């Protein structure tokens, strides 16, 4: 079951304390102690929470109909009138899964960073930020009210900002961190509005009463701020929003999902994620692949009762998720920066998770989140290993043939790639982690499509196409990096300048070299996860025991039974047989195309790129999103800001405000000084004049009163 309270407290709070120690006292304790403190703390938290996950998943059956939940109240935080928010640690299936993912990956990333950041002069700061991020993320996933979740949400945003801009002397890193922060503000605005709407409707920001009210479909146990009709229930009540009567659950659901879109880099708000690769690679692995970007998925699954009764919001999620999955995969095909390829792949996989949640298969979404954390972290750390071995070269066109120099890294990357493309044999237990989770998503999408869930059909087809593309770009990455001849234009001349990492004292020759052991150990451990995570947890997450496992942490409406429907007709489901084979077929197809283009006809890809068809240009330029945003939002904001600054602030506010007032004050002061002559008879005159005026005032007053 769960760990004892002190150990849970340790898991959640210790990273924060370690971050504080490493961050505040780095001058006194030095780099090494700071690294030790943070790594050991987070590492042990990781071991503990992994143990907790196994103990929970395999340590006995839970009541499927009784919501298993254990809440540790730490302190009262906000208590204003009806508005309550406590510091609390909520332990249930959802948070147990997330804690395991976060702390284990984070621990490995900490360890990995010993090697990757070995030449960086600011190690203590880096590790402090990493631990801070871990703490904030744990705050997010263990919060039992929306405010604490919001706190963690903003906290991870901050940590992300700090880490993307870790090499702050690089302009590109600075602007990337600002871009990430600003884009997330757009989403966070939606999230904040969503929380306010929830408070408005339910009179509380605590999860339990709110979700219970939706499950039981009554306002009896909550105190709404808005006044609804007597017979209104949460599922059919509506409030005015922007002048329209909107069902409350749809409104809250969409607003909260906008927040999730920002954090999880979904279509329209995805622009920051590729740029976030300016941060150090361990950061990309931890924050921008395994954990923080999945916070949106977590939020949607956590609030499953809302989305179960908000069909339009769910449809919207499914649509956005499907579009993102396909969009990011297309862009991923045409990128040349190794980290950007993986970043777009992350974006695409997040799309899968979202459309799974959108069609009602929250468990599948969480399952994919879980497995994805391992193989995506593995891919990133592997890429980091390559980058490290290639002396901070990130352009795949300048790589090639690295396999023979970095055998372990190559093996790890292969495992990661096979995991992400989801290779496995349907109807059997043979497959890598991605196979279980991704196929579960695709199957549930098709089943939901049959049941008539909106956008589920679209999601299925987009998912299939994206699977093809995923296979293609993943193998393209492997071939371009590890196979073929080493590119001629080596990296040590021009690429180094704009790279800017402080490794000028890097004395190695041009040859790539295998990474040190501290970097390889995490790769190996993650490889284990990438291979077996799906196999071990399939039954618990989405298989036959899923109801016992989730134990009420994820709610499904009575009419939602996609997880039962996803089996084929023979096994009690509704899916036709070919649905199970379709992912495998497209995956192999993608593999063959990539092999043909990049292994056997090396150079063909380059020629296609050089020919530069409109489609390639579209993909390579990320569908011109940055340019469109630049032209509309950025430019528009600038024009608007200019107007408010030059006309609104300078002329109107300053003119009549500070400048005008200070001018008036100066003028008044000089007049007053001039009036103060120092002559006695002037003073006497003023006194008598004042007496006369007062008399006049008071006499007029009296006359008026009579």
């Amino acid at each position: 079951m769960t760990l004892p309270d002190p150990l849970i407290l340790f898991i959640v709070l210790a990273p924060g304390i370690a971050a504080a120690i490493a961050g505040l006292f780095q001058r006194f304790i030095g780099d090494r102690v700071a690294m030790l403190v943070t790594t050991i703390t987070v590492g042990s938290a990781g071991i503990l929470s992994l143990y907790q996950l196994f103990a929970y998943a395999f340590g006995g059956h839970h009541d499927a109909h009784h919501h298993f939940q254990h809440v540790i109240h730490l302190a009262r935080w906000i208590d204003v009138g009806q508005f309550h928010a406590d510091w609390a640690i909520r332990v249930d299936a959802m948070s147990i899964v997330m804690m395991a993912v976060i702390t284990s990956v984070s621990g490995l990333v900490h360890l990995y960073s010993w090697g990757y950041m070995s030449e960086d002069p600011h190690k203590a700061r880096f590790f402090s930020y990493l631990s801070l991020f871990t703490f904030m993320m744990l705050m997010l996933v263990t919060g039992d009210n929306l405010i604490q979740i919001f706190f963690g949400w903003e906290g991870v945003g901050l940590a992300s900002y700090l880490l993307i801009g870790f090499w702050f002397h690089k302009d590109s890193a600075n602007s990337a961190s600002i871009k990430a922060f600003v884009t997330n503000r757009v989403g966070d605005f939606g999230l904040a509005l969503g929380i306010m709407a929830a408070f408005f409707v339910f009179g509380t920001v605590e999860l339990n009463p709110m979700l219970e009210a939706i499950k039981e479909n009554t306002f009896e146990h909550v105190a709404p701020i808005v006044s609804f009709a007597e017979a209104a229930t949460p599922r059919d009540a509506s409030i005015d929003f922007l002048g329209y009567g909107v069902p409350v659950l749809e409104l809250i659901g969409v607003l909260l999902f906008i927040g999730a879109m920002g954090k999880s880099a979904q279509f329209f708000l995805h622009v920051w994620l590729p740029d976030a690769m300016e941060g150090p690679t361990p950061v990309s692995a931890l924050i921008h692949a395994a954990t923080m970007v999945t916070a949106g998925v977590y939020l949607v699954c956590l609030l499953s009762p809302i989305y179960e009764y908000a069909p339009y919001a769910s449809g919207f999620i499914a649509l956005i998720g499907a579009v993102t999955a396909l969009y990011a995969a297309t862009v991923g095909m045409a990128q040349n920066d190794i980290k950007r390829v993986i970043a777009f792949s992350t974006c695409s996989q997040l799309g899968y998770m979202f459309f799974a949640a959108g069609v009602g298969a929250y468990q599948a979404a969480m399952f994919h989140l879980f497995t994805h954390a391992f193989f995506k972290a593995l891919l990133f750390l592997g890429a980091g290993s390559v980058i490290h071995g290639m002396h901070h070269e990130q352009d795949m066109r300048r790589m090639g043939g690295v396999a023979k120099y970095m055998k372990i890294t190559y093996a790890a990357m292969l495992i990661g790639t096979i995991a992400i493309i989801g290779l496995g044999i349907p109807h059997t237990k043979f497959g890598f982690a991605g196979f279980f989770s991704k196929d579960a998503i695709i199957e549930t999408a098709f089943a939901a499509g049959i049941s008539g869930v909106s956008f589920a059909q679209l999601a299925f087809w987009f998912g299939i196409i994206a699977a093809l593309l995923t296979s293609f770009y993943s193998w393209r990455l492997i071939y371009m990096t590890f196979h073929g001849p080493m590119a001629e234009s080596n990296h040590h001349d021009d690429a180094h300048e704009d790279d800017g990492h402080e490794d000028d004292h890097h004395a190695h020759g041009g040859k790539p070299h295998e990474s040190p052991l501290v970097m390889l150990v995490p790769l190996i451990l993650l490889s284990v996860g990438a291979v077996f995570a799906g196999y071990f947890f399939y039954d618990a997450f989405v298989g036959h025991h899923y109801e016992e496992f989730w134990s009420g942490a994820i709610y499904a409406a009575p009419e939602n039974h996609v997880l039962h429907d996803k089996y084929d007709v023979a096994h009690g489901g509704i899916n036709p047989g070919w649905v199970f084979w379709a992912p495998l077929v497209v995956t192999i197809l993608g593999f063959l195309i990539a092999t043909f283009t990049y292994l056997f006809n090396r150079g063909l890809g380059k020629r296609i790129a050089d020919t530069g068809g409109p489609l390639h240009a579209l993909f390579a330029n990320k569908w011109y999103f940055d340019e469109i945003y630049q032209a509309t939002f950025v430019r528009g904001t600038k024009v608007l800001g200019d107007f408010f600054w030059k006309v609104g602030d300078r002329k109107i506010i300053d003119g009549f405000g500070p400048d005008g007032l200070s001018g008036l004050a100066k003028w008044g002061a000089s007049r007053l000084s001039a009036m103060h002559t120092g002559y006695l008879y002037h003073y006497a005159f003023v006194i008598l004049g004042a007496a006369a005026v007062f008399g006049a005032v008071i006499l007029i007053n009296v006359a008026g009163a009579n």
Partner: protein
Amino acid sequence: MNWDEIFAAATPELYLAFAGLIAVVLGAVLRERFATVSIKAGALILLGACALSLFNIEGGVAFNGLWETDRFTNLAKAVCYFCAGVALLIAEPYLVKERLIRYEYALLVIFASLGMGITLSANDLMTLYLGIETLSLSSYVLAAFNRDSQRSSEAGLKYFVLGALASGLILYGSSLVYGFSGSTNYDAIAQAEFGIGLVFGLVLLITGLAFKVSAAPLHVWTPDVYEGAPTPVVAFFASAPKLASMVVFATILFEAFGNAIDQWQDVILIISGASMLIGAFGALRQTNLKRLFAYSSIGNMGYALIALAAGEDIGGPALLVYMVIYALSQLGIFGVLLSMRRRGGMVEDISELSGLSSTMPWLAVCMTALVFSVAGIPPLGGFFGKLVVFQAGVEAGLWPIVIIGVIASVVSLGYYLRIIMIMWGGDKLAPFENMSGTVGITVSAATILAFPVFTVVIGWMMSLAGGSFSLG
């Protein structure tokens, strides 16, 4: 003659009068030998009077209704005597260095304090007038105490002539009030029918009293007198008499004319608004610190008058709290001005503070805290003073004056911040001569008091003064 009554109501004043007379005799006998001793003895006498007025805080009525004290006035008296005593103490080093040390200084401060006590206890226009004269005459002489300085003499003369004019107005007003109400007793005046004659008498009284508290537009004497008079005298003027006059102003308006608040409220509001604005704008261009704080005090009187205009129940306690905080912080500020001495004499220009933060950091910290307190920056005492006053104004529905008050506060921040900017940012000048012990202690104590030690004290004073008040 009922001595029990007299002792209950007037012990501190009787004690002060006798102590003052004995000091006169001692001075006449001992002459120069008494000079330095007299300062300390005088301070002791005043602190004793402070203790006595706290001891007899319930007060009473005496002298056939000419005299009445209660908690409110006794509290004001205690603070006045305390401030006067401290102002006397911190004067000594200055007087010694400027070769002005004479026992008459202590005598005059004692008698001025006696005058404050009399005005505060007055329940009759005649007592009030005599008390005001006792205070004023001593003050005129004190202002001109440095008789060899032309500026000091000029200050004394101006103060005297204008003060006589104001006294004349008070007398004229009193005689009109007497003529139309048939009595000079506050209680009897309150009973009288409020006719047009009484109104005019009241106007003249208000004019005269506004002169005494240096509220605009009767403030004209203040900058000149502050600039010309010796600094310790100004320290005295800025604290105790201001507090006493303001409380007396309130007492007479509340007790004798409380029923006619609708009539006089507008006049008080005009005076208050004018004071705040003139105080704020007038100080902006001043470079002489004493002159600057003269304008600052004019502005502060304006804030206090808001409480006065709010009426007895709402404004009374707020007024007392505001004035007490103000008086105590003034002692600290003038303590700093007193310590501005370089080889060759006192300096008074604002530029002389330049770089104080590096040459005398503690003094700079004190001055900063005190100036911020007077400016009303939270969490310092002055902020709470302004807060209660504005609260009283709002409670009484006097929105416009509160808004003017806020605007004036913002404008006055301009010169307060200039002082601080010069202290912390300017070029380093040679440090001042060493402070004497009493000045240093006073400045430090005032600084500490400027911090929200006051929140406790305020609550205590409010309950003592009979007001119900809670922060926030």
